């Protein structure tokens, strides 16, 4: 019962703060609302027994990524938005497009009645131990590959951020 209320509450917070992210005039506010959204989503993860993931989520998104965003906003001096004046047709297009996307998605997914045989749900899946085993055994290769991804992202980011030095 409690969990049900928690679901509805978290969902409401997530959606509300998401909307707030999108419509806030001040980017800093947007970032903060987004953090709220992330927390709400983390709450969902808890509800779904993905405790470790919830923790990682908070650390990565709220901790790392959002800080990065905030840092960029500061650096680019965007704390007050100049001329965020979208033409009305873009506004209405955004509403229509996202609205109809939502409707269509809901419509197509309503038919998901036939479900494949269900394995017995376990409460164990979200535990660090289980996750760790899966990650370092079954998903070792992708885990290693992720390092390549990071390496390339790093090389790329460094390259792009490097100031062109006249003398070489």
């Amino acid at each position, binding site marked *: 019962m409690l969990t049900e209320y928690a679901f509805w509450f978290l969902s409401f917070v997530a959606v509300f703060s998401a909307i707030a992210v999108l419509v806030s005039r001040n980017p800093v506010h947007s970032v903060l609302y987004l953090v709220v959204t992330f927390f709400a989503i983390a709450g969902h993860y808890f509800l779904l027994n993905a405790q470790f*993931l919830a923790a990682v989520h908070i650390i990565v998104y709220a901790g790392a990524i959002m800080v990065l965003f905030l840092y960029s906003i500061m650096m680019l001096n965007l704390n007050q938005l100049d001329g965020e004046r979208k033409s009305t047709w873009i506004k209405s297009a955004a509403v229509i497009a996202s609205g109809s996307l939502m409707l269509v998605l809901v419509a197509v997914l309503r038919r998901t009645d036939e479900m494949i045989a269900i394995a017995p*749900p376990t409460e164990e899946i979200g535990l660090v131990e289980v996750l760790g085993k899966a990650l370092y055994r079954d998903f070792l290769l992708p885990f290693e590959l*992720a390092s390549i*991804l990071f390496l390339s992202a790093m090389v790329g980011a460094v390259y792009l951020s490097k100031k062109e030095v006249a003398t070489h």
Partner: protein
Amino acid sequence: MELLPNITVDHYLYLSVILFSLGVFGVIYRRNAILMFMSLELMLNAVNLALVAFSKQWGDTDGQIFVFFIMVVAAAEVAVGLAILMMLYRNMHTTDTDVLNKMKG
């Protein structure tokens, strides 16, 4: 099938759809590159939420592992994306995407 009492996987799916659509809305509606990024992150999170719900539904860790990788990639993407954005800003002194129309037709 209920993941929580009275809450089925469909609830989570619809929530995910709503967040995804909101992300789409933001991507179209905002024209500041950073805010568009943020909307994009919202979309990714919607996906993550769905995956975790499915993971719970199937009693399978793989879904959560996938979410883990999505976070990894998202971080990498943000790093590269913001680097590109910085460079853009250095050259054009704006992050307004409407000015990005040097090439068209």
